[in-house]
């Protein structure tokens, strides 16, 4: 079949960028990676990209197609060609570009190394045989263990775009791999590490990482698990944690979120005073309901009773986060009625990402 691609070429020495179009012939079973190979072999040997296994396990070929991160070896070209679409290929986001589709993974690995990415079993002399761990215990980190370190999640992370020091979905998912491992002794220090300024509470919950991950790791859920474990262990000094806890209290007392008290309860009186001007502007519009007669949900005592009942059952922390343990969540897709899949030509990503440092 005839395949057309546009690739954002970036010069390795000068950093100059240019959008180039390529038209090649490729077999029907070709994935994006196969097409890149054909271009590099037969048309332009200077095209730079990483590849190795071509079976979605090594994590080398992360790149963007139409502005969203994918593994080149996983994207079949036939459906794209049949739609008559010419995709735009560029390098992953949030990472410095080396050349063409090759990014420097140094910031990525620096963040991995910063979370102490090895098991701390709490002993120096290993026992003679394996430690006894149940399959159920190991399943707690089944998803985190799938991570191939490809960078697709990091590429798309909205929080990291705004805060480049955010530890990011990959490093946090890796941290959860250890926090959730029954054999790792080090939970509280680990949790303290990721409860810092650029840690779990910096996550904006955009779910891009879950959406982009080619292996079904669901890093956002791993971050939620870390948050849950942190609060369970009483690590709640962060404003984000306080904010989350206030939601719980709100729901138990009135059923609905008491926004007026959200700021003073999470940020303290001083913090609230700083926001006074802002708050007044909001209050004038009724955006911040005045303290006073509280809107209480009907039958809110049921919620309170549920809270007490559920707490007594002890499915706290990461264990409480249900992920749907069955297999690859990405492939088990919930198709709602009326889902629209064939869409007209709207191509976000045709404009190149802003030049990064």
């Amino acid at each position, binding site marked *: 079949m005839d395949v057309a691609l546009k690739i954002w070429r970036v010069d390795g020495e000068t950093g100059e960028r240019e959008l180039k179009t390529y038209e090649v012939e490729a077999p029907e079973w070709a994935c994006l990676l196969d097409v890149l190979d054909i271009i590099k072999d037969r048309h332009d040997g200077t095209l730079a990209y990483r590849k190795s296994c071509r079976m979605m396990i090594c994590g080398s070929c992360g790149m963007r197609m139409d*502005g*969203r991160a994918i593994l080149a070896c996983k994207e079949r070209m036939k459906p794209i060609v049949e739609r008559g679409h010419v995709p735009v290929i560029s390098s992953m986001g949030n990472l410095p570009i080396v050349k063409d589709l090759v990014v420097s993974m140094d910031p990525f690995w620096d963040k991995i190394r910063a979370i102490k990415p090895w098991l701390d079993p709490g002993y120096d002399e290993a026992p003679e045989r394996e430690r006894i761990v149940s399959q159920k215990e190991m399943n707690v980190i089944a998803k985190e263990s799938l991570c191939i370190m490809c960078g697709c999640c990091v590429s798309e992370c909205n929080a990291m*775009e*705004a*805060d480049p020091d955010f530890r990011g979905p990959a490093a946090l998912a890796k941290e959860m791999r250890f926090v959730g491992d029954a054999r790792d002794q080090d939970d509280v220090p680990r949790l303290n590490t990721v409860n810092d300024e650029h840690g779990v509470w*910096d*996550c*904006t*919950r*955009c*779910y*891009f990482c879950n*959406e982009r991950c080619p292996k079904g790791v669901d890093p*956002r859920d791993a971050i*939620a698990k870390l*948050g*849950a474990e942190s*609060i369970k262990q009483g690590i709640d000094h962060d*404003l*984000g944690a306080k*904010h989350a806890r206030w*939601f*719980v209290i709100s*729901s138990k007392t009135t059923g*609905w*979120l008491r*926004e007026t008290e959200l*700021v003073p309860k*999470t940020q303290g009186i001083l913090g609230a005073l700083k926001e006074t001007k*802002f708050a007044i502007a909001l209050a004038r*519009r*009724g*955006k911040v*309901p005045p303290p006073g007669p509280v*809107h209480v*949900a*009907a039958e809110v005592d*049921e919620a309170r*009773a*549920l*809270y007490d*009942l*559920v707490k007594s059952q002890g499915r*706290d*922390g990461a264990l*409480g*986060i*249900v992920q749907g343990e*069955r297999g690859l969540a*990405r492939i*088990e*897709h919930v*198709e*709602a009625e009326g*889902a629209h*899949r064939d*869409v007209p030509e*709207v191509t*976000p990503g045709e*404009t190149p990402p802003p030049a990064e440092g």
Partner: protein
Amino acid sequence: MKVAYYKGCLASLSAKELDSSTQALAPKLDIELDELDAVTCCGAGDIHEAEPDYYLHLNARILAYGAETGADTLMTICNVCTLNLRQANWQLKNDDELRERVNKNLQTVGVPAYDGNIEVKHFLWLIAEGDGYERLKQVAHKGLKGLKVAPFYGCQILRPSKLLGFEDPDKPHSLEAIIDACGGEAIDYPAKIKCCGFPIIQAREDTALGELLQPIEQATEAGADAMVTPCPLCHLSLDAWQSKLRERTGRDFHMPILHLSQLIGVAAGLEDSELKFKRHVVSVQPVLDKLEV
């Protein structure tokens, strides 16, 4: 059609305009709202993180009461509620053991058991389903007179697509089609599916504002007259926090932000008392002027 109506926290309090415009608009679209009152906050990402098991039960309770009304559909008007309820629904429907335990707990506190027999849908989807657009053209008889509207989807009505799946999460077009059907001009821009920053706007204001800048800036530069969003939390960010964005960047943003129900509502000729535009922080007057309302 009759739906169980779950309005969520913001529509009850700080975004009353969303509730009033929804309640006024729905009948015009042949949607009868059976409002649930014995329900609580869905917990957002916060209770999901702080007390995950409790979050599951709160949402199961909402679903149970929704199913009790006899309706097939539980209608939401907020992205976050939609994701939370659909996530809980998916977990309960697919895991018999889990559902059994949760139901036992629900029944202990006097809530009916939930059998997985209700579907959660955002108002946006109900409008966009089937021949929704055609019906819309008739309802929105006053029209938007070519008003340039930039749609802002936000995150949690698109992602994770395995739980939402109404439309392509990277190329959604329901809002554009609605804008079109109402006689407006849909403005395209890349950040329409990115995050407004609301979940961290208090804990990490700097980061959130860095995110918020993108849709506001891009929509402004693309010449939009207004933005529309299906999520009241995004609305809060885009509207109420726009002043902070002005402060931070020194740029004079004045982008009116409309709830979806207001956008269709104003084109359908809803009353001022139903639309409640005065509750917005960024004045909607320029839009009303353009529409000669």
